[in-house]
């Protein structure tokens, strides 16, 4: 068990962390191809030489995969790390909250819910999409 590691933010990532504090999930989009990318970089992955724009993501996606970490993780184990495929077609690592581990299914719809993990700055977490009447 180890303590959580706090993110070292930088010039390139500032818009993401500022967005998180304001409850917005900011990702990047290529100005040439319109394709999104994650994680933030100073260059586009999709068009050589292009500089990506920042856009607010939908915050919706599906569970691509997940793992309940019992041993060797941070002090608050067990917890669920997951990869979420956003509607913008990028994968993002996160934690799933608000659902029992044995109820999680690959492919289930989730949405962003901002919060902190044991002293971290506010960052995007995901939870199941609420059933709506």
């Amino acid at each position, binding site marked *: 068990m180890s303590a959580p590691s706090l993110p*070292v933010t930088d010039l390139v990532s500032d818009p993401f962390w500022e967005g998180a504090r304001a409850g917005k999930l900011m990702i990047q989009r290529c100005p040439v191809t319109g394709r999104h990318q*994650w994680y933030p970089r100073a260059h586009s992955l999709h068009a050589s030489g292009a500089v990506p724009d920042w856009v607010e993501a939908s915050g919706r996606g599906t569970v691509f995969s997940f793992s309940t970490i*019992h*041993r*060797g993780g941070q002090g608050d184990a067990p917890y669920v790390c997951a990869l979420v495929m956003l509607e913008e077609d990028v994968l993002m*690592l996160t*934690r799933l909250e608000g659902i029992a581990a044995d109820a999680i299914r690959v492919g289930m719809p989730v949405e962003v819910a901002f919060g902190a993990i044991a002293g971290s700055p506010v960052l995007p977490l995901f939870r199941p999409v609420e059933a709506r009447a």
Partner: protein
Amino acid sequence: MSAISRAASIVGAYESPRRQAPRLHPFALQMECVMGALADAGITLSEVDGLCVAAGDWAEGGGVSSLTEFAEYAGITPTYFDSTDVGGCSYIVHAGHAAAAIAAGLAEVVVISYASCPRWWPLATPSFDPFVLPAGPGQFEIPYGPTLISAYAMYAQRHMALYGTTSEQLAKVAVTFRQHAAGNPDARFRAPITVDDVLASAPIASPLRKLDCCVVTDGGGAIVMTSRERARDCRKRPVHLAGFGSAAARTQLSQISPDIATPAAISGPRAFAMAGVDRDTIDVAQIYDAFTITPMLALEDLGFCPKGESGGFVDDGHLTLGGRLPTNTDGGGLSSNHPGKRGIFTLIEGVRQLRGEGPGIQVPDAEVALVHGLGGTFCAAATAILTV
């Protein structure tokens, strides 16, 4: 035909029998392995002009300049060297590069060696490890607390969801390799296990349990390579490097390919093309098994079974004698040894099988071996095809 294929040969191989080496610095263990491999080849240390070392990770004894550190420790001044470090498969990469260097006349006798002592090493993890560093690309992942095992677990979970792969099929990998370890006197664990034993073992990172995970041992190994011409004068039957391929893909979990293909899908075809052989000619395979899911994905990406069908391939008994691809004949990382970067042992056991010296199970009259490793969490891959 590539100018590299079959131009260089492995003439010496040595695996330390140690599985626990308290208060033995990894450099001392690594030097034991170097001398063991040279003795196996009948070559002296003073003839070595090429050195490959990747010993800067935790419990390996060196730092970012581990090549000069270990050259100094060995007391040699190599003129060809390679400290490529892409994780566990680094030593297979070294072998491919060494074959090219030998073919090009850049080196004549190259030693590739490795040792690590995680059961003893008293110092903390270096802060440069990308899997713990919360800066740059890691700032978006490390705060969530992923572990190395959870990365493999997420590949496994996705595979189960897409293809119906079961925990029982994963367990069968561990059970099979434990059967191979039973005959290996040096293996860390030799007592048989069952699928139920694996399923009953403690959860580590779901869906992976304790017995889905490699053992943790101290240990080391080395190989010696030289030209095919010079190899004729060495003590043992030479093993030629017929094919080699490598690929480096990613580090962060968010960069996993959406179809969960691993870089083996790139390194494998390149190795087969260089060797000029197809999959049916492979008599025996050594495939890095850090976790039970690891060789399963490799079997698919290397083309031994279609994508998604490795569970059935394992279930049908193809990984042992009588099957289509006897694999990890020494017990592998799941049962024999795993100090941290196991790639060197896949090369050593590949050589032993082609010499008829396998300590676990021996494939009769094996003539073509496939050796494959991954680095990190399927971040990099290297494949070699060995022939006699």
